[in-house]
């Protein structure tokens, strides 16, 4: 009997997870999101910037991690536009460019912002750490054109912007390498720039040392981090909507772990006796 329970068909587990997630999406519980300090730090950093300050956003993720990072990117962009900050972006991952651009356009429409005047997207260049190193000293050498081939000299907001010096804050939405590690290594350690991190939940624990050493001004991990940020800017979005499903899925996984261990211990006891 115990053996049977331990070898439960995985399709049953898949079905339970599927049903729980669907129910949570169809019938939201509206659970309250607890805002953690690392997320609040990013919010406070953006709040402290004066209008027309320049912020650099790096979209270093792809569709596989968009469920976690897209809501956070959109929330941060909304916050920046609400504060009338100027955004320049790029992607260290090729697909990040279009994902970021889609979010920039959504927020730009909401806040009446214009491409080339309030925000610009430089696009993708292969090279990761070398791209960061290059734009730290000469942005136009690395990106003579934006993501759709416009000459960067034709974008009014980039007048006199030749490197990372004018940027008060850099935020990377990072799902792996190249990403936050390289921003910290070059832009923070070498040029003293402030870096904020939006990361996938699975890699967030790896960057707590950077946070504690003040090499990151803040950290928002996974969909939970995005939901916290949405709560801070008081615009609930996809992350807030997804938190119920994620909460219940986590709860079910924990119940499975406990169930598996109870059976394991019972089996161990019965075999030893």
């Amino acid at each position, binding site marked *: 009997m115990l053996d049977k329970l*331990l070898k439960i068909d995985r399709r049953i587990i898949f079905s339970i997870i599927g049903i729980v997630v669907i129910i949570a999406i169809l019938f939201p519980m509206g*659970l309250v999101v607890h805002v953690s300090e690392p997320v609040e730090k990013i919010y406070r950093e953006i709040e402290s910037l004066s209008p027309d300050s320049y912020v650099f956003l790096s979209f270093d993720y792809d569709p596989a991690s*968009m469920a976690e990072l897209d809501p956070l990117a959109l929330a941060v962009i909304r916050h920046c536009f609400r504060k009338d900050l100027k955004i320049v972006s790029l992607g260290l991952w090729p697909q990040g460019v279009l994902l970021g651009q889609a979010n920039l*356009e959504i927020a730009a429409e909401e806040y009446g912002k214009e491409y080339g005047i309030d925000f610009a997207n430089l696009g993708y260049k292969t090279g990761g750490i070398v791209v960061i190193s*290059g734009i730290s*000293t000469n942005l136009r*050498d690395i990106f003579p054109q934006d993501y759709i081939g416009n000459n960067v000299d034709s974008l009014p907001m980039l007048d006199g912007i030749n490197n990372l010096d004018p940027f008060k804050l850099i935020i990377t939405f990072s799902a792996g390498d190249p990403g936050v590690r390289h921003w910290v290594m070059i832009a923070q350690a070498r040029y003293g720039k402030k870096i904020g991190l939006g990361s996938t939940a699975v890699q967030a624990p790896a960057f707590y040392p950077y946070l504690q050493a003040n090499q990151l001004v803040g950290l928002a991990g996974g969909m939970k981090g995005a939901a916290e940020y949405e709560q801070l800017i008081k615009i609930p979005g996809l992350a807030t909507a997804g*938190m119920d499903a994620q*909460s219940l899925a986590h*709860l079910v996984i924990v119940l499975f772990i406990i169930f598996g261990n109870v059976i394991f211990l019972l089996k161990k006891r019965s075999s030893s006796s």
Partner: protein
Amino acid sequence: MKRQIPLLITFIVGIVMVVQYFIPRQPFAGLFDTFNQWFLIIAVFALILGLMNLVRLHVQKLRRMKGGWGYSIILLCGLVGTIFTGALWGIGTGSPFNYVFVNIQQPMGATMFALLAFFIASASFRAFRARNLDATLLLVAAVLVMIGRVTIGALIWNKLPHIAEWIMSYPNMAGQRAIMIGIALGTVSYSLRVILGIERTYLGGE
């Protein structure tokens, strides 16, 4: 000569890159910029090489009608299709490339990753066992973080989010920092071996 010249180039470039970090003045700063630009150019050729390898592999698979050859047709069509749409009409909003990206690549990528939740549930049920003290500690920490990091955690017990944050900020951070220091020391020693020509496997092995 076939080995000496690459070793000499590696030594000179490696030393210049190390020196420019500590002395960011001319001529090192200029050399650093030049090397960066060369790297970007070489990286583009590496992309082209990767693309050619991918095409060759799948064309061979098609020729020999190996198992899963149907997927190779889809891959090659997708590859050619996206390259042409991107090259002809650009990648801006409303372009065919963007349409393909938003309506095909995005949902497919997101779906693949979403499947992970199902496999994690199954794997954690089967593999996460309190077999000894170390495994039990890991298990308890994982359960507390998993529950404490989601909204339902506070509903179960309002201290759970704080406990999860404490685990992340102290025990987790200490472990991660130890790993990071280990990796950094390993990277420094490996880099020195490469620069000094002791480590030569990157040349094709000896």
